[in-house]
């Protein structure tokens, strides 16, 4: 099953493009599952009908679902939740406590499970995920890592310790401070499920991220950072989708200045993302309902099959080599003489002849001195100091 993660800054039109991608996939004969993992679901809004947590056929060949975090938690981990609820009860009003049970990270976990469940049915060959805005999505992607290390190193010890301690602590502090055995079983189940999903997401042949942007500066800046982060967490981005491009017949008159700004930003997008760039024109009407969404999909993919892996390249890679942080950037055809590299705050600027590329550095690299930079075999390797 092919998995497409659509993400980007808030308000750029991720949901519309996820729905349009799903419909275009169905037109190419794929059996498509369209999944919303954004806690602020808008899939129903895009189709102009309620969708909700049960899978629902929204168009021929497209089944949609909005993952309901609270319901899923109830169903899957009632043990874990029961314990938390017990603990939280004294702290806060009950209604608020229930909303709070959606701890940071919980949403991501439930969402991850959903991808696995779609795969397990064996009934779909394309799963399009309408993700939360970039920040949250990136947390979703790193959650398996965090959970893995927790489980592998910490968990067994805690569990043994807790088992031995329960009788003592229960005597000292009344209440359910120490979780029951079922809690641990549920947690282990959860871990195994998340590990499955990790395998799916890290496999570049199956999973691609598609970044949605608008031709606007603030959007492009933030998305550049996401691009680097996705590389860092090992998820391949195979295309950037530029949404709401003013078409030629809308670019004059009152909108003349907006059109000028747009062409500047299109240039910026091309220099920032070394992957295929697809454009979706601004539609003449609100994009709501299957017909309008299908038009949008045709505008983006034209005759292409959206399930295609548009590129297998990983043009930016971050690694750790003999204790040093190394950033590798593919620059095929560049020669040393025409290359300039500079770091400005959190941006790395690479200049080859007249072409410039900006890479926004992850927080852990920004502000570190560049120790060395060298070009070999079309790969620029930048080593950062401590």
């Amino acid at each position: 099953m092919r998995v497409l993660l659509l993400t980007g800054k808030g308000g750029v039109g991720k949901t519309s493009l996820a729905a349009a991608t799903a419909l275009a996939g169905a037109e190419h004969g794929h059996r498509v599952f369209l999944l919303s993992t954004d806690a602020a679901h808008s899939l129903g809004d895009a189709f102009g009908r309620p969708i909700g947590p049960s899978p629902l056929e929204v168009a021929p060949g497209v089944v949609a679902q909005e993952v309901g975090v609270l319901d899923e938690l109830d169903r899957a981990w009632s043990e874990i939740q029961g314990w938390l609820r017990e603990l939280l009860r004294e702290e806060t009003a009950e209604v608020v406590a229930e909303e709070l049970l959606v701890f940071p990270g919980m949403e991501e976990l439930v969402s991850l499970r959903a991808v696995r469940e779609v795969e397990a049915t064996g009934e779909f060959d394309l799963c399009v995920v309408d993700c939360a805005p970039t920040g949250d999505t990136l947390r979703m992607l790193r959650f398996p890592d965090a959970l893995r290390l927790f489980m592998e190193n910490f968990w067994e010890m805690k569990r043994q310790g807790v088992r031995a301690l329960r009788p003592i602590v229960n005597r000292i502090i009344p209440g359910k401070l120490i979780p029951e055995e079922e809690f641990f079983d549920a947690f282990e189940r959860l871990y195994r499920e998340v590990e499955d999903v990790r395998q799916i997401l890290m496999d570049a042949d199956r999973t691609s991220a598609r970044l949605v942007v608008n031709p606007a500066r603030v959007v492009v800046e933030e998305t550049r950072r996401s691009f680097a982060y996705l590389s860092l967490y090992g998820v391949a981005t195979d295309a950037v989708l530029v949404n709401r491009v003013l078409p030629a017949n809308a670019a004059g008159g009152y909108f003349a200045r907006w059109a000028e700004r747009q062409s500047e930003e299109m240039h910026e997008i091309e220099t920032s993302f070394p992957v295929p760039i697809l454009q979706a024109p601004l539609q003449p009407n609100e994009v709501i309902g299957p017909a309008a969404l299908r038009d949008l999909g045709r505008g983006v993919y034209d005759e292409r099959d959206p399930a295609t892996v548009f590129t297998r390249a990983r043009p930016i890679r971050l690694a750790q080599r003999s204790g040093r942080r190394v950033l590798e950037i593919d620059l095929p055809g560049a020669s040393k003489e025409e290359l300039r590299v500079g770091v400005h705050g959190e941006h790395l600027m690479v200049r080859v002849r007249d072409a410039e590329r900006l890479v926004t550095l992850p927080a852990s690299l920004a502000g570190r001195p560049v120790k060395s930079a060298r070009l070999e075999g079309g790969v620029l390797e930048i080593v950062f100091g401590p």
Partner: protein
Amino acid sequence: MRLVLYTGKGGVGKTTTAAATAVCAARRGLRTLVASTDSAHSLGDVLEESLGAEPREIATNLHAVEIDARAEVERHWGRIRDYLVSLFRFQGIEDIVAEELALLPGAEEITTLLGAEGWQQSGDYDLVVLDCAPTGATLRMVTLPDVAHSALRILLRLQGALAAVVTPVARHVVPLPLPDRHVFGDADRLLYKQLRRLRRRLLDPQTSVRLVVTPERMVIDETRRAWTELSLFELGCDAVVMNRLLPDAALSEAFFADWGRLQGERLHEVEEFFAPLPVLSAPLQDDEVTGLARLAAHGEQLFGALAPNALLSAPQRVEFERRAGAYVVRIPLPEADSTALDVAKVDDELVIRAGPLRRTLALPRRMAALDLLDARLDAGWLCVRLGQPDAAEALR
């Protein structure tokens, strides 16, 4: 001192609206500070000023600041983060990933709010305008004092209970890095003092939230749900800003004819959905609204005769509580008449008709799947009970 927070779905123009409000207020003689909680700062771009980590006067009465979230996080969370990094490293995680993992969700936003809280207390300003992250993130930010407070108290209690027994044992079995008392001290200071103070500020009657929307269905739908959730967490809204209405000059472009036809409808919906909140509107300008002059003009169009720092409506909010297995939603309807009351639940919303008055309310997730049990008016409040479907059956 007034605190106004602007929020809304991404891309609707929150930063521009916040900046225009501040410039307008300053020109009308209020000592104003504008700040952004968004780590991808665009406030400086909008004001066309390079901003620093300390408030700087950029015009008469007007200060602006872009908080250096990374430095601030270092200051407030540094030791906690260092401990986490050492823990992750110990687990054999690569350095880069360990550092990224240790960036606590929400830390930057909380830090920004803490900074803003400090300047509010200085007494230097009549009005502080905050440009907040998009709806989802803002909600989390606002709940974080609660979440973090509860979660950490639990952890501390758990730690306290276990420390006496487990830690000495664990230290011998595994040389695991354990947090020292400074880490707990920092956590304690953050939670018990700063976050609580922040929460008090957010719930103060002089604080209000303004929701920014554009005339688009999906934006409006999401913002309605955000409004409900703000109520759930006890934050009061005093106005809605309808941004980017196409002016006549734009509507004469053939391509936008359909958009123009729709926007009247959308404006009407916003007035109805968000009643009793007043709706202020601002046009889509013919270029990006940047620089003090354009922002001032934009602000004048937005506020007209209204004062930018006024409480634009009496803060009324919906209340939620859980009583005897059912949920009770209490909605202020001071002008409603009980003889002509009709309440229905349609999908995930409540539709209320009381004579000529019509209100709709998007329900919190937890309540969306429940059935309507009953509704009654009580001293200007509409009380709606929601419960499990089988409970509704039993009642019949």
